[in-house]
C-alpha cells in the first residue's frame, strides 16, 4: 500500500475525530462542561444505527435525522436537570469544570452499564456499503468515504453557523468571555444549554458514522471521549478550526503508526502527540498568549 493511501486513510479517520472533537468542544468551550460521558452518546447512537439498520433496514445516514435530534433533546435535558444546579452554585468556571468532571464521570457508568445490560457487551457490526471504491487511482471502502464526506459536510455547517450567524457568534463570545457576553445581553444559561445539546447532537452524528465502518460495543465511549479531549486541547478550547486541524493530524498520525509500526500503538501515538503539543505549545496549536 503506498504511503499516500495510508495518509488518505488517516485523513478519513481524522475527519471523524474532528467531528467528535467539535461536539466535545462545544460542550467544553462554551458550556464549560468537561463531559466524560460524551463518548457514551456516540456509542448509544452507534447502537441506534445498528438496530435501525438490522431490524428495519433503515439507511444509517437517513437514521441520523432521527438519532441526532433525539440526542439534541436528551443532552438539552441533561444540561437543564443535571448541569444547571452545578452551574448555578459554581463560583468560578474552574470550579464548574471540576464538579462536572465528577458528575459526568458518574453518568458515564450509568449509560455504559445500561447499554451493557440492554445490548450485551458483544462486538457488533453491520455491513453497509462495504464494497471498494476507486478514487483518484486509489481504493477505499465506500462506507469510509461516505462517513468522511458526511463528517465534512456537518463540520462545515457547524463552522459556518459559528462564524456567520448571530447565534454562532454569541456562542463564540460566550466561550471567550462569559461576563462580556452578559454585558451585551447574551442569555448565558440558555446558550450554554443549547451549546451542550448541539455538542451531544454532533456526538450522535459521529457515532452513527463510526458504526458504518467499525465494530463497536458498549465500552467504546471512553476512548472517543479521551481522543476528543486530546484533540480539543491540542486545537485550543473553544477553537473549532483548531479541532479540525488537530483531528486530522491525529487521524493521520494514527494511520501511519498502525501501518508502519503496530496498530496496537495508536492510542500511545495519540498521547505522545498530545504531550509534544503541550510541551511545545501549551495553549494548543493555535493558542495565543
Amino acid at each position, binding site marked *: 500500500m503506498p504511503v499516500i493511501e495510508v495518509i488518505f486513510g488517516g485523513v478519513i479517520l481524522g475527519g471523524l475525530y474532528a467531528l467528535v472533537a467539535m461536539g466535545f468542544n462545544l460542550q467544553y468551550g462554551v458550556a464549560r462542561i468537561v463531559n466524560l460521558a460524551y463518548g457514551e452518546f456516540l456509542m448509544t447512537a452507534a447502537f441506534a444505527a445498528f438496530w435501525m439498520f438490522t431490524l428495519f433496514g433503515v439507511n444509517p445516514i437517513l437514521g441520523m435525522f432521527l438519532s441526532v435530534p433525539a440526542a439534541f433533546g436528551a443532552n438539552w435535558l441533561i444540561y437543564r436537570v443535571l448541569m444547571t444546579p452545578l452551574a448555578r452554585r459554581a463560583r468560578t468556571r474552574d470550579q464548574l469544570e471540576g464538579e462536572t468532571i465528577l458528575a459526568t464521570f458518574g453518568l458515564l457508568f450509568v449509560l455504559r452499564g445500561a447499554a451493557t445490560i440492554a445490548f450485551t457487551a458483544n462486538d457488533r457490526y453491520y455491513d453497509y456499503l462495504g464494497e471498494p471504491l476507486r478514487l483518484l487511482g486509489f481504493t477505499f471502502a465506500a462506507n469510509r468515504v461516505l462517513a468522511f464526506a458526511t463528517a465534512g459536510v456537518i463540520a462545515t455547517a457547524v463552522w459556518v453557523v459559528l462564524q456567520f450567524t448571530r447565534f454562532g*457568534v*454569541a456562542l*463564540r*463570545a460566550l466561550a471567550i468571555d462569559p461576563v*462580556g457576553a*452578559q*454585558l*451585551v445581553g447574551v442569555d448565558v444559561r440558555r446558550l450554554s444549554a443549547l451549546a451542550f445539546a448541539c455538542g451531544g447532537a454532533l456526538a450522535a452524528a459521529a457515532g452513527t458514522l463510526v458504526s458504518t465502518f467499525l465494530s463497536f460495543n458498549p465500552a467504546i465511549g471512553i476512548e472517543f471521549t479521551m481522543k476528543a479531549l486530546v484533540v480539543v486541547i491540542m486545537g485550543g478550547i473553544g477553537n473549532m478550526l483548531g479541532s479540525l486541524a488537530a483531528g486530522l493530524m491525529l487521524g493521520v498520525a494514527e494511520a501511519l503508526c498502525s501501518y508502519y509500526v503496530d496498530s496496537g500503538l495508536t492510542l500511545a501515538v495519540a498521547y505522545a502527540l498530545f504531550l509534544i503539543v503541550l510541551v511545545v505549545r501549551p495553549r494548543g496549536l493555535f493558542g*495565543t498568549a
Partner: protein
Amino acid sequence: MLEIDGLNHSYGRHRALNDVAIRVRSGEAVAILGANGAGKTTLLNAIVGLIRPSAGSIRFRGVELVGLPARRIVGEGIAAVTENRHLFGSMSVTENLSLGAYSRRARDAAPDGMARVFELFPRLAERRGQAVRVLSGGEQQMVAVGRALMTRPLLLLLDEPSLGLAPLIAGELFAALTRIVDEGAMSILMVEQNARRALKMVNRAYLLSLGRIVGEGAAKALAEDRAVAESYLGL
C-alpha cells in the same frame, strides 16, 4: 432616570457600599469621585447586574433593576464599560462591535451604530479587521466604549475609562465622550480617578468615601472647592 436608594453591599465583613443614594437625570453626565477602594466599582457592578447588592433599590425609568440578570439590564437600556473590559480578544473589532448589537433593542440599528462608532473613533475603522487582543490598551478601551454604544444605551456607565492609558489616547477618548455628552441623547455615569478631567466633562459629581456618599454638587463648584481639590484632585 436612574434612582438609587439605600444601596448596601458587603463582601464578608467589609462593607463596600453603605446606604448609597444617587440620581442621574435624563441627558445628564454624572461622575463619582473617590479614592481606590471607595466602592465605585462595586456600585457600577450592582447597577449593571454583575453583583446583587445586599440591600437597597436601583430604579431605572421606573423599573426595579435589583434582581434582574445583567442581560435584562442591557435590554432596559444600560450599557457598561467595566474596569477590565471583558472584550472578545480573539475576535475582530467588527465582531466585537456587532456583538454590542446582540440585544433585541439594538439589533435593527446595528449598521448605523457601527458607522457612528467608526466616526467617533477613526482609529478603530482602520483596525476593524484586526483581533482586539493585538490592539493597544487605548484602542481596546475605544472598542469597549464602542461596543457599549452599539447596545443603544440610554445610560452609559464607565468605570475608570482613562485608567492606564497614554495621555494622548485618553484625550481622544474623552473628546469622543464629551461629544456624546454634548449631544444630550444619553446619560452618562462615570467613575474616574482623573477627577480633573472628569469634572470638565460632567454636569454633576458625587464624592464617595469608604462606601458612603460624602458630598455632591455641580461639577464647576466642586472643581473650585478647596476641600474637594485637596482630597480628589491631588493638589
